[in-house]
């Protein structure tokens, strides 16, 4: 078991280092000059060259990489070349917002997907089951940003019930925070909810055909009880796998949703920083995203062993 954990940590560390090198290399070959962007069109080429030196852009790539990654290892993400503020707090602020958004949308997706998936499975061949199943298919087909724009048009522009975008810190005004969270969380979670409900449905259908359900029924449990006490836990394993993968997708989806709703999360920060060629900040953000996704995968793996004892011995 200790060996397994150590091996996992080794893989984790290697992945982070490789990701840092790849990120750094990709950004080094990106066209565009941060010094020119900072000084604008009024500056002469000589001014721009001096600015590039001041920003440390003319040092050899290996020196820049080691300087950056060395500091990251001790928790220092450096200073933004644009805002001139420490990058670490900028990232944690934005990450906090994105995590709240993603987790809320996951919760909403699950709240929708589990009952809906079970219902469509149980009512599989009934007309209502078919209709509900069709609805979830539509949900899968509508992209999050489109759902977002539709929600804004209906609930913000036409009905004026909720704000069209923006973000409020929960510590500042909790009601305002919820008002600003609800539409983007629904937009982000809708597709995932629909996708998940399909998995819940097929997973439940599969479990209902298992021997142990038949056994449970044979000892006198009703279909509902058999499913609840014995089936759902088994049905959860494949759903958890999908959910783990989906959270990574949600982080990407959040980039788009944050744009639609003008939310200052990690996605918005990343796009702003790329546009301004604030490379130390971009490197930091990408690295944090990589670590975040790796951690999530690790947690999902861990959750499996909790849900399914069979996986414990396998590990």
């Amino acid at each position: 078991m200790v060996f397994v954990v150590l091996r996992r940590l080794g893989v984790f560390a290697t992945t982070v280092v490789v990701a840092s090198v790849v990120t750094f290399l990709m950004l080094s070959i990106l066209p565009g000059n941060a010094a020119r962007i900072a000084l604008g069109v009024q500056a002469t080429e000589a001014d721009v060259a001096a600015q590039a030196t001041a920003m440390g852009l003319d040092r050899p790539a290996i020196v820049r990489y080691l300087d950056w990654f060395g500091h990251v290892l001790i928790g220092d993400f450096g200073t933004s070349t644009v805002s001139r503020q420490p990058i670490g707090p900028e990232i944690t602020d934005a990450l906090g917002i994105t995590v709240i958004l993603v987790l809320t949308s996951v919760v909403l997706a699950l709240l929708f997907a589990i009952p809906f998936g079970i219902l469509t499975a149980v009512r599989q061949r009934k007309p209502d089951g078919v209709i509900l199943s069709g609805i979830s298919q539509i949900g899968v087909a509508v992209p999050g940003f489109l759902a977002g724009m539709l929600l804004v048009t209906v609930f913000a522009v036409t009905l004026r019930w909720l704000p069209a975008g923006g973000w409020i810190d929960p510590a500042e005004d909790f009601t305002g925070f919820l008002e600003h969270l609800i539409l983007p969380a629904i937009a982000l979670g809708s597709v995932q909810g629909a996708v998940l409900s399909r998995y819940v449905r097929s997973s439940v259908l599969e479990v209902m055909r298992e021997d142990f359900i038949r056994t449970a029924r044979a000892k006198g449990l009703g279909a509902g009880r058999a499913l609840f006490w014995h089936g759902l836990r088994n049905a959860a394993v494949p759903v958890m796998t999908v959910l783990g993968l989906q959270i990574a997708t949600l982080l990407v989806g959040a980039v788009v949703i944050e744009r639609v709703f003008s939310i200052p999360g990690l996605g918005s920060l990343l796009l702003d920083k790329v546009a301004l060629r604030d490379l130390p900040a971009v490197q930091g953000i990408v690295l944090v995203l990589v670590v975040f996704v790796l951690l999530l995968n690790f947690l999902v793996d861990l959750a499996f062993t909790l849900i399914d004892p069979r996986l414990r011995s396998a590990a």
Partner: protein
Amino acid sequence: MFASLATVMVASMALVGCTSGSTTAEGEPDTSLTVGLLATPGNLDYTTTAGAAIPQALLYNVYEGLVKLDNEGTIIPLLAESWTVSDDGLVYDFLLHDGVTFSDGSPFTAESVKFSLERVKDNWTANGPAYLDPIASIEAVSATEARITLSKPSNSWLFNMSGPVGTMFTESGLADLASAPVGTGPYTVSSFKTGDSLVLAANADYWGEAPYMTDVTLRYFTDATAQTNALLSGDINLISGISQFQLVDQFKSNTDFQVLEGASTGEVTLSMNNASDAFSDVRVRQAVMYAIDRQAVMDTANSGYGLLIGSMVPPTDPWYDESLADLYPYDPDQATELLAEAGVSDLTVAFKIPNLPYAVAGAQVVKDQLAKVGITANVTALEFPAVWLDEVFSNHDYDMSLIMHSEPRDVTAFAAPTYYAGYDSPAVMAKFAEADAADATTYIELMKEATTTMAEEATADWLYLQPAISLADADLVGVPKNTPSLALDLSTIAR
């Protein structure tokens, strides 16, 4: 002046708006305002960071200079109560307002004028420190009298003093220019979060008339539709300088809002690399002028909003000549003839545009129209600002581009031989220099002559002037209509 292409990033000007939840106690006027803007400042230091976003938010609101531009583009007193100019045009004596303090409590005096302006040469890297080159010496005659002596007469420097380089700073307020600006203006910065918002509060110790709006939030959007949705849903109160004009009409029929149409200084320019093989012959450039139906480009890219100008001069400049709009009427036959005369056939040009909506839409029309006279334009949309600045602006690696030049009075910069347009006319440059040192009347005449020559020589095809359109809650008054400078002056807005 150099065209601030970075200004395009801030294609939309400040939008002032109130949050939807801002209600007031019975009878109390609502003095809070939320403004929606399109390009966020990366930091708050315009002494070292280019782009229109920072001066848009801070100039005249947080920072002030001796003079300012009013909404009609006239230079008016600000921190200077009045000034006199010597007969030879070299010595400017400014009488300063008494009792002015910076927001950190330190006093504003003639020493501040000397300190601020002398700092520009060595410490400013952005926003045109060279604008102050005409200054030979600055003298604090008394606490409220500053004397500035120029090395040669200059008509443009006082105008430039109304912009960022004329800003007054205090030595004790320089510690954190990037996030905590200290100025003499009617507002101070309460909080700033890049990409999200900049919150301003009325400066309780302001020396002048207190602004009506006590709390102003500038909210930054990345998408024009999100911006108009925010206005429609009541999240914000004002959009100043909308960038996508197809979004305007829905507000015209809605009595909850007002649509204000004013003039900007943004010339949407089809630039031709005068130094390239393709366009070094003036006849080929003129052929392009005849081949383009500018009205059609404006209809497509701007939903018909804008003004055909024909030169790089907006109507707010004294040397504007409206007849230049008709200099090159749409005439494809004439274009074909000129190309034949120049011995050019099967011309293929690299048409590198920024990936901005108006440029992408306009470029398609231009491409089709050029095809009709036998010019093939290969359109490439480059990421703006990073890649466009690198490839087109810095490296001049292009034949043709399409971009808005937003800065006021940027035609002199455009004519410089080192500029990306590659136009090299010693005669025009000499005329600009002569104009700057001339008396007021001759100044206008010579500027008109030089800018007309540039139009005749088809230095570029100035397609149209971008309008300044503001969308606001119906109850707002005093919203700045025109955008003669980079600043969005919030002090005049009331309900």
